[in-house]
């Protein structure tokens, strides 16, 4: 089976600082991959390079059988690559339903042809909000939401683009245990619908229960990649996390 996402030898520098140093990563269709690493290890930079927010200096990104280097972020979204942001970035002048309307109008239209009517759009927005349990707040503004609701909105907006691959960038940071379980259940539900998920997270219990495979970044290099239970016992990983 060919990989859905194939990252080959990606490097990225910020001035003299090497943020990513020759990263290789493969993700199979339908897989649940956990990506961990200490602060500043390059996780978000990697996501930004994959999604087109940043340009990698070397290496290629291959998505769904095509090289996507040089494509703008929105073009990558059109091809089925969606992300949520570490700090939620809602469209704050729009209510929740309209927040979801954007990817529907701009991505789903571009890829699958226009939805039939305004009614279709409305019901699709409602369906997505219902999926994350925010249906009752469709007319509210993002500023009225709690932190966990904001994360859910972020995921719902990423899902509205009907992606093949969802990259969830620390969508649980700062949440309570029950809230983390909420988000995890949501991600598993999405994965069961056939969406490949990359989860970037600090909270080990969440990553361990979610991931089928685990990759570890330290100082811009990938130091481990494999079954979660093997990876956490890896000597290098233990050293990176516990500072031995």
């Amino acid at each position, binding site marked *: 089976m060919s990989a859905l996402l194939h990252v080959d030898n990606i490097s990225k520098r910020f001035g003299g600082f090497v943020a990513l140093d020759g990263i290789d990563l493969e993700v199979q269709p339908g897989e649940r991959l956990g990506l961990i690493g200490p602060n500043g290890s390059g996780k978000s930079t990697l996501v930004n390079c994959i*999604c*087109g*927010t940043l340009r990698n200096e070397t290496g290629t990104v291959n998505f769904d059988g095509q090289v996507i280097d040089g494509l*703008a*972020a*929105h*073009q990558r*979204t*059109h091809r089925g690559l*969606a*992300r949520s*942001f570490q700090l939620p*970035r*809602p*469209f*704050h*002048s*729009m209510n929740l339903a*309209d927040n979801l*309307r*954007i*990817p529907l*109008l*701009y*991505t789903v*239209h*571009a890829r699958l042809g226009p939805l039939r009517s305004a009614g279709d759009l409305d019901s699709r927005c409602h369906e997505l909000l219902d999926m994350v349990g925010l249906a009752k707040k469709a007319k509210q503004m993002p500023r009225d939401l709690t932190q966990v609701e904001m994360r859910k909105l972020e995921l719902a*907006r*990423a899902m*509205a*683009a009907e992606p093949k691959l969802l990259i969830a960038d620390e969508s649980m940071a700062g949440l309570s245990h029950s809230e983390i379980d909420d988000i995890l259940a949501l991600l598993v539900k999405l994965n069961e619908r056939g969406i490949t998920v990359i989860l970037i997270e600090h909270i080990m219990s969440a990553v361990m229960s979610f991931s089928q495979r685990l990759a570890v970044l330290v100082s811009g290099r990938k130091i481990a990649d494999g079954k979660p239970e093997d990876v956490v016992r890896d000597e290098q990983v233990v050293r990176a996390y516990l500072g031995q």
Partner: protein
Amino acid sequence: MNALKFSLIAIGVGLLVLAFAHWLGLDYFYFAGYTILQFIVLATAWNILGGYCGYVNFGSAAFFALGAYSSVFMHKIFPVPVPVLILIGAVVSGAVGFGMGYLTLRLRGAFFAIATLALAVVLQTLVVNWDFVGGSRGAYIIRPETLEFAGLEINYIEYLFVLMLILAVTALATARTIERSQLGFGFATIRDDEMAAEASGVPTLRLKLIATTLSGAFMGMAGAPFPYYIGYLQPSSTFGLEYAVNSIAMPLIGGTTSWIGPLVGTILLGSLQQIATVTISSAVNLLIVGILLVAFVIIAPNGLVGLVQEHWRRRGP
């Protein structure tokens, strides 16, 4: 209310204004009305980029002057009717708007504003040193007293007034159509968060270029008939602070998130200025703008329209 219905109503209101002006039969009303209508077009054009997309343009005067000076240029080489001049002004200013959008696509916030200001200075310097269109001396265009049209003799200032009325209706209808379309939603995402917009699949660069082009084109259209209205075109006044400041202040005072904001702001501020010009002095105009702008930034940051919306929201459930 769909776009067609709105256009019909807008045309109806325009005709009422015209009928009133005709009934009044006062040349002064046409002069004053023309200025207000011209600012409706400028404010609406500014708002397409500044209000909808959140990109503050300090160079409105430059786009306006480009329209005016392309008319002077055409007048010298090949005189054509004013409606054609308006189209030429739209093309010239639209093209410059496109160029500005392309060159400044990486600039945001204050940096974008400074770049637009710089553009205005560059263009003014070019015009001042271009003798063919009058240079720093300025250019005279003798306005005919009347216009022959289908056997009728029309007062020329009334003719210009009607043209500007049509432009204002077109600008408002365009702004309103954009606001409720996919384009309008895209513009709002650029204002809110460009990175999130890209991640949602919005082609932000293309939309920004559409906004700068459209905004520039309308400003050029507002400027094209100006030499005929004023009779004597001078760089320092055409590129003047009055146009740049008014086209920002009017939408801000009215409210920037909807088409009606610039309209309300212009009618309020424009009328005040006209009254001040007659009763006190035209020099008071900028003072009025300054005081009102400061007052509104403090009391009603979302403009008059925002104030009314807030009031309704509180009264509603």
